[in-house]
């Protein structure tokens, strides 16, 4: 099998932290944009959470708890939905996203508590025995599963392992677990008397199951979401690999065939360029290494070929950060290659660059007509001088080996700057 590009798994863009410093109101009147990436029902809680700077999980809990207050949460949810817009419609561009903060979460909790008390006064109420225990249990679950600042770092894993590795703080687990079970216990105590006939054991099992569901449920759904996302990523990269395999077997071969045939120079040049571009796409490095010497040298080939239609063979041994000396070497090699392509008449230019422990070496060679270094035409001297000047400024040396009919080699040596 050909060497396929490593699978790249793209994640949905997380709320960008850079956009959070200065929360601006969007120009549009729509205050809430439903979340596309973070949605359970309609994306209202996700969007509201991003807007308020509260973890969407907390917003969901708030709606759920308020729903118990005579269905107020359901009405609020529908109202919020009616006053929000879908992402990527008008006004959704450049929306501010606030990073969840504990203070915002606390504020939301207070608002919910206040609303609950208000609704209780108004009589929109299922009764203390039901609402308070459930509110308590929901708050406990939220304490455990609110992602807060570690949202970006959060990885799926065993919840018990997460507890020990500190991905979910021990205190959070304890406080949350305590709230969950005291809420359930309270509910059990409140209703236990009425349901004694149904069997204490059964109720006990049910309460424990609900408690475990509240503690581990969010982890399970989050895990499922991440697995689905990874699967999508894998399918994408498999589809890419399949396409790369097909292109590799068909188009690259055709381009190689054209280059072996007696085609015109224009067609040859075109086939060569297309081959280079296709190869670059097929074997694309997921993160292009910037500021490295190797890709900078390899980029010389396409520039020379584009301008002079002469193929350039490039071999680089070793790699180093692209510092000033490296840049001078790349520029000098490129000038020498341009020079060879323009004047030598050779069918091929070879560039060789090696990174040695204490110096950089570069060789640019052609098998063209060559020249007598003592009788250099003035236009070539100018270029030779500019290469010399460039390299000497960095403490290096240039040797040009050439004689008529023997081709030319420009040899460059540059001391490496000490890191």
């Amino acid at each position, binding site marked *: 099998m050909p*060497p396929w590009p490593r699978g790249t798994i793209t994640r949905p863009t997380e709320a960008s932290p850079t956009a959070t410093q200065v929360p601006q109101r969007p120009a549009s009147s729509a205050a809430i944009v439903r979340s596309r990436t973070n949605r359970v029902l309609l994306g209202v809680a996700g969007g509201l959470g991003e807007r308020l700077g509260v973890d969407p999980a907390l917003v969901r809990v708030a709606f759920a708890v308020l729903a118990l207050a005579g269905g107020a949460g359901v009405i609020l949810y529908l109202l919020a939905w009616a006053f929000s817009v879908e992402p990527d419609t008008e006004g959704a561009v450049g929306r501010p996203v606030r990073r969840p903060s504990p203070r915002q979460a606390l504020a939301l909790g207070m608002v919910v508590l206040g609303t609950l008390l208000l609704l209780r006064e108004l009589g929109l109420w299922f009764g203390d025995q039901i609402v308070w225990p459930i509110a308590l249990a929901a708050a406990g679950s939220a304490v455990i599963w609110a992602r807060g600042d570690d949202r970006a770092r959060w990885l799926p894993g065993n919840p018990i392992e997460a507890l020990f590795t500190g991905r979910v703080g021990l205190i959070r687990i304890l406080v949350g677990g305590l709230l969950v079970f005291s809420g359930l216990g309270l509910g059990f105590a409140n209703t236990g008397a009425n349901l004694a006939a149904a069997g204490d054991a059964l109720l006990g099992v049910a309460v424990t199951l609900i408690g475990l569901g509240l503690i581990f449920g969010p982890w399970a759904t989050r895990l499922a979401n991440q697995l689905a996302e990874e699967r999508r990523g894998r399918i994408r990269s498999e589809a890419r690999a399949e396409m790369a395999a097909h292109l590799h077997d068909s188009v690259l071969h055709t381009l190689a065939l054209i280059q*072996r045939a007696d085609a015109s120079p224009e067609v040859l040049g075109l086939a060569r360029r297309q081959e280079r571009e296709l190869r670059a796409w097929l074997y694309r*490095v997921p993160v292009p290494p910037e500021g490295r010497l190797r890709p900078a040298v390899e980029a010389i080939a396409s520039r020379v070929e584009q301008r002079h239609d002469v193929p350039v063979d490039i*071999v680089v041994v070793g790699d180093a950060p692209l510092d000033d000396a490296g840049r001078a070497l790349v520029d000098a090699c490129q000038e020498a290659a341009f020079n060879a392509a323009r004047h030598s008449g050779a069918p*091929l230019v070879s560039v*060789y660059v090696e990174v040695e422990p204490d110096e950089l070496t570069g*060789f640019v*060679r052609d098998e063209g007509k060559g020249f007598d270094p003592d009788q250099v035409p003035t236009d070539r001297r100018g270029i030779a001088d500019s290469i010399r000047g460039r390299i000497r400024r960095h403490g290096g040396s240039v040797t040009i080996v050439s004689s008529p009919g023997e081709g030319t080699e420009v040899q460059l040596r540059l001391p490496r700057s000490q890191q």
Partner: protein
Amino acid sequence: MIRVFLVDDHHFFLSGLRAELGAEFEIVGEAGEVDAAVDGIRRTRPDVVLLDVHLPGGGGRAVLEAVRQTDQEIRFLALSVSDAAEDVIGVIRAGARGYVTKTISPPDLAAAIRRVQGGDAVFSPRLAGFVLDAFHGDLTGVADPELDQLTAREREVLRHIARGFTYKEVARRLHLSVKTVETHVSSVLRKLQLSSRHELTRWASDRRLV
């Protein structure tokens, strides 16, 4: 006449090769996939096999490994559209005596086949660069100093090949005989095939994205 067997799954490319090489070499057979290639090579016992690296049914490596279990004296020259280090190092370590890309000119290909038939190694500039890169760097943790590093002379020869010189030019520049240059290159090939230097494999897979 040197007897050559062609292994390639691209019919156009095969017919092109046949037309180019037919006058100079005896084409004893051809195959487009691994099993047929192994059978055909064992039956016809050619001097040189021209082997495509990417083949349905396991790739060129599978052919090399199967044939070399029974017939050590058949020589292989790998031919590929890919320049990926993993492929190049892979087929060489499986036993090929040289590696050229499919854009090689017909006369150069003919010369490479003759060289491989004569028992020498064929190093393109790029392969020479790969070897220098793979044997580059510090030598800590080297198991067998004889196999796991290049001598100064071998390094110098490889550098010249990587710079684009032919064996003859290398010999002239280094004041050696062509035979000595060939000996150095063959010795590098042997090291490349036998060295257990663990960086070699890691290096090749790190460089798989060319």
